[in-house]
């Protein structure tokens, strides 16, 4: 914990300076809020507005989208290594769709998924899918030639090569894409709430800013920052255990080592 001391000191000084300036020029609070006014609004929302409910809803939307998009995207990317003929057809198509800004598809998604929580999950899943897809297909292609050749020389079938070299070998890319996707899934959920919502942190930000209540909008933003940091820490925890996950996925049970998820060596 000692390494965070300088960070906390800097945050404290910046916060005090912000507060001091807003006390000297009170009109600044209207445009940029101040730490005390943000804290006040946060407390007010927690007491009167069921803030935790909005927080949980945005978190659920983003997390569901992240799971659906990351997992299906990674599986698609890896599977296209195995089905090389299909890859020549589908890779360019998927990469093409993935390079279009996802907001373009939002109006269609309203028709398909309505304006409820499904829309936000779909938008979050949609954005994360393409990141996971492009990263995992790159990962599959970047597995060291030597690793594949050792298995090939010993007579491994393409299926064995896939499970024992490609899947575990591209896990670094797959889990890295999950970390990138922390930002994208929150963006998807947030934009979904901007389009149409009655609940969620995006809805709180939108409503507060339309009432020119800057401290309240910033207080809701704090909730999103908390979600982002929490997701990122989880993704980091998983990413650091990629060797262990690779072993679980590709090594037969009888050969598993004594390592565990919490007592790991990287």
């Amino acid at each position: 914990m000692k390494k965070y001391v300088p960070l906390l000191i800097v945050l404290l000084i910046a916060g005090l300076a912000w507060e001091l300036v807003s006390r000297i020029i009170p009109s600044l609070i209207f445009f940029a809020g101040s730490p005390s006014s943000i804290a006040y609004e946060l407390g007010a929302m927690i007491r009167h507005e069921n803030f935790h409910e909005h927080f949980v809803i945005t978190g659920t939307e983003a997390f569901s989208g992240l799971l659906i998009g990351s997992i299906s995207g990674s599986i698609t990317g890896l599977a296209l290594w195995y089905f090389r003929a299909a890859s020549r057809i589908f890779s360019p198509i998927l990469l093409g769709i993935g390079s279009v800004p996802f907001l373009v598809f939002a109006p269609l998604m309203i028709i398909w998924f309505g304006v409820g929580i499904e829309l936000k999950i779909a938008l979050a899943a949609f954005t994360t899918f393409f990141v996971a897809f492009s990263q995992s297909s790159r990962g599959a292609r970047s597995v060291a030639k030597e690793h594949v050749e050792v298995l090939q020389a010993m007579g491994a079938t393409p299926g064995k090569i896939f499970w024992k070299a490609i899947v575990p070998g591209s896990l670094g890319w797959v889990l890295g894409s999950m970390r990138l996707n922390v930002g994208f899934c929150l963006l998807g959920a947030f934009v979904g709430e901007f389009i149409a919502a009655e609940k969620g942190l995006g809805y709180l930000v939108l409503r507060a800013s339309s009432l020119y209540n800057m401290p309240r909008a910033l207080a809701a933003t704090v909730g999103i920052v908390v979600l982002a940091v929490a997701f990122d820490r989880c993704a980091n925890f998983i990413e650091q255990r990629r060797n262990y996950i690779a072993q679980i996925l590709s090594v037969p049970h009888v050969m598993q080592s004594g390592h565990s998820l919490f007592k790991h060596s990287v």
Partner: protein
Amino acid sequence: MNGPQDQHVDISCSGLGHEYLRPGGTIRVLKNIDLNIKPGTLCVLVGPSGCGKSTLLRLMLGLEEPTEGTVTVDKTRKQEGIAYVPQNAMLLPWRTALQNASLGIEIKEHPTAANRNFLLGRFGTYGLRGFEDSLWGDLSGGMRQQVAIICALASNPRILMCDEPFSAIDFVSRLQLLNQFKEDCSLLGVTTVFVTHNIEEAIFLGDVIYVLSARPGSIKAIHPNLVFKNSFNSVKVRETPEFQEMFRRVWNDLKGTEDHI
């Protein structure tokens, strides 16, 4: 000379040659290689660096297609299993030492607790006890090579191909490993192709020594070398007059190739 169809040949090359495409033209690394390797033979290919030894091995393994001639590996032998020890043991970095050693078995069948105990025993024999759960990155170059050899032999292969497996290992450990390796190979009766640039290693191990010339590599001399077939002590063997004589002969062949460059 025996044809590829001959039942008593495990690996056969005829008129084998290979060229690599490089920017600015092709590089011819091998030419006119004719060789037949009989079952159970420990065959050593010795030659100067860059003479195409490793390429010859890759062609035999089917990792590359020859540009001239043919290389045939007996089909049933192929099905019974080929093992490969690459030059810089590139096994899988996310696996522990023991898990890497089990790769050869895993490719053939689903490993059992008996396989695990067997591998643990091999770790003891090779002096690797205590490193079973170490990740690949935590092992020294020598240890990795030992694990690669354990892995290759544990699958009980019919054909074993080694590409300078001991070149990264210090001298003392190498002498001990050589003894163990030769004993294991002769116990298994595995047909072995062993590539090296170390003449002493070649004479101690090989039933047949093929001396390759400098690039483009071709077979310069073939030395049958059965005197040491049943000696498993590389230090004692060095002191015999037969060893000295063979060393002189191979050295003269190789010296000629070096002068050529």
